[in-house]
């Protein structure tokens, strides 16, 4: 600290203290005087941790994918070799594109179901006052906290036709997309209902009345006024549902037998490289990266939408 004798004279106590103390104390002194610097550095450190924690696994997948499988033991942080062919081999060894299409189809079916039911429920919860509205909302909230594993065994029995009602056994849904779509739709539904409830609530009152006076029917007012205004919220809800279902592991793993013909999703495609004699780690890594691509694209396109859709609802409440 190059304090001149003049300054020392002006603030004798503070200056002499800084002069005489060690590095640690000088830094502390500076931090106290200019806390913004500290906050800025803390932000960098926090962001650094977060970025490393979330991106390192992805980088590690690249390292594994590029390393030929025979030299994959005892890996460091750089690839041992360069084998981009793994990304093509993935599709030759197993029909990985079929697994991906299965996943996309399952996510799409779920999204349609969740949006249809969720937007009707959200509209009613958001725009009408009726007896039992709050208890019903709480019930939905409570259900959303049930652990999915609790449903597994009953659902498995149901979907494999082992549950009989009035002598008619339940339909065989194991190995169909519905055995994944139905539980996942149900699990995602509460979140989407809450999201859309807050969204519909923000649409000013009286717009439907205005449209009806102007010449619309009830349904017409819904179609011309409420639907366009709620489109951003519904889009957010749809994207979220799609991502949640696409990324889901539990039911996706257990409700199908793992073959592409039986609607098995991406994760089974990745496990398909796990043979009894050998595990093709490089292909699993490559498949994982390819599997992430649809989500990465979706999030990149829609990230602004997702963030604003989520915060809009939250802030306005």
């Amino acid at each position, binding site marked *: 600290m190059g304090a001149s004798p003049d300054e020392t004279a002006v603030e004798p106590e503070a200056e002499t203290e800084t002069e005489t103390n060690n590095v640690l104390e000088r830094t502390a002194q500076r931090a106290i005087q200019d806390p913004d610097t500290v906050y800025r550095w803390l932000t960098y450190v926090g962001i650094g941790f977060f970025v490393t924690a979330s991106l390192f696994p992805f980088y590690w997948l690249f390292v594994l994918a590029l390393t030929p499988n025979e030299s994959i033991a005892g890996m460091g942080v750089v690839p041992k070799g360069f084998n981009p062919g793994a990304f093509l081999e993935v599709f030759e060894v197993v029909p990985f594109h079929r697994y991906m299409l299965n996943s996309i189809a399952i996510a799409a079916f779920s999204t349609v179901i969740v949006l249809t039911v969720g937007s009707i429920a959200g509209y009613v919860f958001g725009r009408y006052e009726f007896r039992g509205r709050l208890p019903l909302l709480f019930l939905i909230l409570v259900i959303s906290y049930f652990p999915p594993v609790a449903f597994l065994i009953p659902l498995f029995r149901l979907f494999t036709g082992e549950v009989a009602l009035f002598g008619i056994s339940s339909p065989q849904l194991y190995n169909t997309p519905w055995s994944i779509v139905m539980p996942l739709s149900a699990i995602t539904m509460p979140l989407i209902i809450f999201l859309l409830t807050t969204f519909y609530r923000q649409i*000013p009152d*009286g717009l439907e009345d*205005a449209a*009806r*006076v*102007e010449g619309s029917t009830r349904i017409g007012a819904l179609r*011309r006024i409420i639907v*366009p*205004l709620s489109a951003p919220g519904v889009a957010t809800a749809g994207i979220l549902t799609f991502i949640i279902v696409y990324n889901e592991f539990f039911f996706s793993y257990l409700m199908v037998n793992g073959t592409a013909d039986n609607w098995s999703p991406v994760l089974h495609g990745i496990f398909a490289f796990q043979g009894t004699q050998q595990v093709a780690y490089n292909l699993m890594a490559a498949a994982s990266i390819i599997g992430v691509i649809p989500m990465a694209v979706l999030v990149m396109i829609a990230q602004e939408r997702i963030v604003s859709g989520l915060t809009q609802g939250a802030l306005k409440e």
Partner: protein
Amino acid sequence: MGSVNLESVNKRYGDITAVDDIKIDVADGEFLSLVGPSGCGKSTTLEMISGLTTQSDGQIYIDDEDVTALPPKDRNIAMVFQNIALFPHMDVFDNMSYGLRIRGADDDIIDRRVDEAVEILRLDGMLDRMPSELSGGQRQRVAIGRAIVRDPEVFLMDEPLANLDAKLRVHMRTELQRIQRKLDVTAIYVTHDQEEAMTMSDRIAILNDGELQQIDPPLTCYEEPANVFVAGFIGSPSMNFIEGSIDDYRFESPITTIDAVELDEPSAVTLGIRPEDIYPADDPRADRTVGSVRASVDVIEPVGERMFVYLLPDAPGGQSTDGAVALDGDHLLMSVDPDTDIAENEELDVTFDQSSIHLFETATGNALIHGLKREPTPRS
């Protein structure tokens, strides 16, 4: 254009009667205000005329056609809402032309009508703006424009000025009157602001607790209120009421006595007198007055062109002790010229303009007499 007739219209929500057996006839081209305190059923009445709310009982006719069972879109009405309710995702042109487009009107008709509305409402150059880019007054004008482009028979307005600031509200008041005259359209206007109703309307319908209290031209409501409620609601500041009784042509109350009342049935009555009809006893106009109240000046409020004087009448027998008559309802409010020489805590005599005294039956609240016409005959 069209007349509107409500015949014994009721609206009940469970056990609560929001609108009780209302009969109103609105003439073609008339400007009628529905006025009353919040919760009096005025908005519900308007919503039933619009068809947004279905009545529990009764018939509604627009232009002599029974519209009771018709949905809003088939009633040929237009409505301006309190919260304006412009469609946020449409620009001004789309908002204004919404009704015409939905009815499948030709593009050139739409353009012409919107242009006319833009001219009337002075909205030039705004057609491609979004509602969020407009000021409050502009939004309100667009909402009115949306209502008038369809050339409706009846123009319904539900507190359209309530969300505007005070200055703009007064301005839009005259604008609305100008537009209504120009279009010569029947208008039904809901407001809780009696001053708005007084200044704008051909007739005022005053509602309370879902019941129609009086429907008359503004000045009639002011000068000849049908009952205590109307008397207290219309006029600002509101009328003073003095509880008393009639005995032998004489009104008697603890604070004053008035002779020569044309009522002989002994009964409990309420005397109503507006603040501007109370004069100090030494006022030059005091020769046409009756009654005399000895009171002390409690508070003086100068408001510019008038001065409000809150008087505390001395209790009977001059026992004006602290706390005895200090309640708000016991104040008499007098409105005088601002240059009147009155000071706080002064004792003075005030007297009432005899032609402006209203007497109401205390039990029912109904008006008995507006103005004492006979010459006062002082009894010794």
